[in-house]
């Protein structure tokens, strides 16, 4: 059975390929690809200059409400900025910010097919021998993101560029606002952490970097040799302190119960790889601040996930599951980072 979106999608793509004929979409199916956008894969076929052509593509469409509200223009720009670089990302093709074509804004990208992303599969035993190799690739790529020049990438044209001593405040203000707007019940642990973060600000960022914002195990495509073929889910990308990105992946939530950074290697090994790749330093006091901040940010995401489900803007079961699974676990991560557990 064909998906009801297929003819609408084909009609849209036909407008973007003026030299093509017989544009058709088939095999459209929704896949798990993060809860902030609806992700579909499909096969595009068309004829051009008398030749039949085909390509496997990805559609990322905004849901009615999300656990994080982000600008798809920024996500699209971040992917485009790194395409063809040492940071593997899919090629972005078309961005559509109006609702007319598919009911909500969306973008279309190439599908990087044949690889895996799920942590459950990665930690099932079959990949144990390549986990150190994967860790090396993971934090080397993150180091490359940190080392990149946002101005040279053109990203300062679409992303705000805070002063080096203002990066922390901008992010903390943003996520505290999420709590103010979205929390469905009081959050005494996260609120205590926020007060501590405001009272003990970190030193200024050593440079202004691109921050992926959700660089963790589960958001990249890996193979059986431990290589990484695509870094995904750039919807929280922004400019800021490079230690923010390093610390997000060290959030105890992303250890998946294995007691290792990202479930892969000891934390000191991950930091050493990142330092080598980025050429940057890691001030332990600053890293601790960003680690606690990222636990608060994580809680802000789960609070927003619960809110989106409660309000009915998005009743995707993944939102309720994320809230039930992670709200208390994230509180315990905050306690752990604060030395209370």
């Amino acid at each position, binding site marked *: 059975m064909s998906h009801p979106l297929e003819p609408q999608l084909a009609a849209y793509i036909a407008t973007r390929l003026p030299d093509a004929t017989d544009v058709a979409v088939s095999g459209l199916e929704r896949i798990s690809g993060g809860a902030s956008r609806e992700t579909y894969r499909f096969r595009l076929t068309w004829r051009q200059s008398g030749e039949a052509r085909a390509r496997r593509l990805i559609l990322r469409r905004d849901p009615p409400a999300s656990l994080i509200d982000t600008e798809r223009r920024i996500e699209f720009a971040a992917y485009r900025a790194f395409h063809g670089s040492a940071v593997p990302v899919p090629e972005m093709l078309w961005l559509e910010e109006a609702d007319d074509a598919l009911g909500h804004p969306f973008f279309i990208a190439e599908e990087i097919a044949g690889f895996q992303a799920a942590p459950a599969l990665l930690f099932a035993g079959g990949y144990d021998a390549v986990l150190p190799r994967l860790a090396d690739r993971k934090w080397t790529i993150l180091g490359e993101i940190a080392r990149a020049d946002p101005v040279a990438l053109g990203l300062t044209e679409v992303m705000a560029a805070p002063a080096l001593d203002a990066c922390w405040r901008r992010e903390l203000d943003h996520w505290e606002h999420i709590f103010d707007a979205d929390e469905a019940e*009081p959050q005494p642990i996260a609120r205590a952490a926020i007060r501590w973060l405001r009272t003990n600000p970190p030193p200024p960022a050593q440079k202004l970097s691109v921050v992926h914002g959700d660089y963790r195990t589960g958001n990249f495509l890996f193979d059986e040799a431990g290589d990484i073929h695509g870094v995904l889910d750039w919807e929280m990308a922004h400019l800021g302190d490079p230690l923010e990105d390093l610390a997000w992946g060290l959030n105890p*939530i992303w250890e998946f119960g294995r007691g290792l950074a990202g479930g892969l290697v000891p934390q000191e090994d991950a930091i050493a790889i990142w330092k080598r790749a980025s050429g940057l330093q890691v001030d332990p006091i600053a890293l601790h601040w960003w680690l606690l901040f990222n636990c608060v940010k994580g809680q802000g995401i789960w609070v927003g996930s619960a809110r989106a489900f*409660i309000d009915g803007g998005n009743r995707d*079961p993944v939102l309720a599951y994320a809230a*039930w699974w992670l709200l*208390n676990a994230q509180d315990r991560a905050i*306690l752990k980072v604060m030395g209370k557990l």
Partner: protein
Amino acid sequence: MTPQVPLVLGEMAALAMRNAGPDVPDGERQTALTLAAMLLGVAAEVWDTAAEHLVRENRAVAALLGDADDESDLRLTALRAENARLRSLLIAAHVAAEQAGDRAREDAIWAELIASTERRKLSISSI
């Protein structure tokens, strides 16, 4: 625990009805039903433990604050409302203790917050 179980169960029932129809692509049906099944498994645990956790937590926080714990209504909705009231007061008490430099009071509040996460732990929790 938010969102609350009745809301989630109602939505899962609606999801099951939608996916019983012939117009849902197979891949989407498989994804939706797998996640719904996982959620229903957690719902059973959340539902079974909710009253126990709320009563214990409300009593503990009320004792810490020297506040009267209202147990005149033991429905989950009433227990949750009382829990939200008490935890809001706990945040205010925590701020006051920090500003007064009252370390003993701070430690007592942290002890209750740690205990609250032990009460709320689910079997699927990794921390």
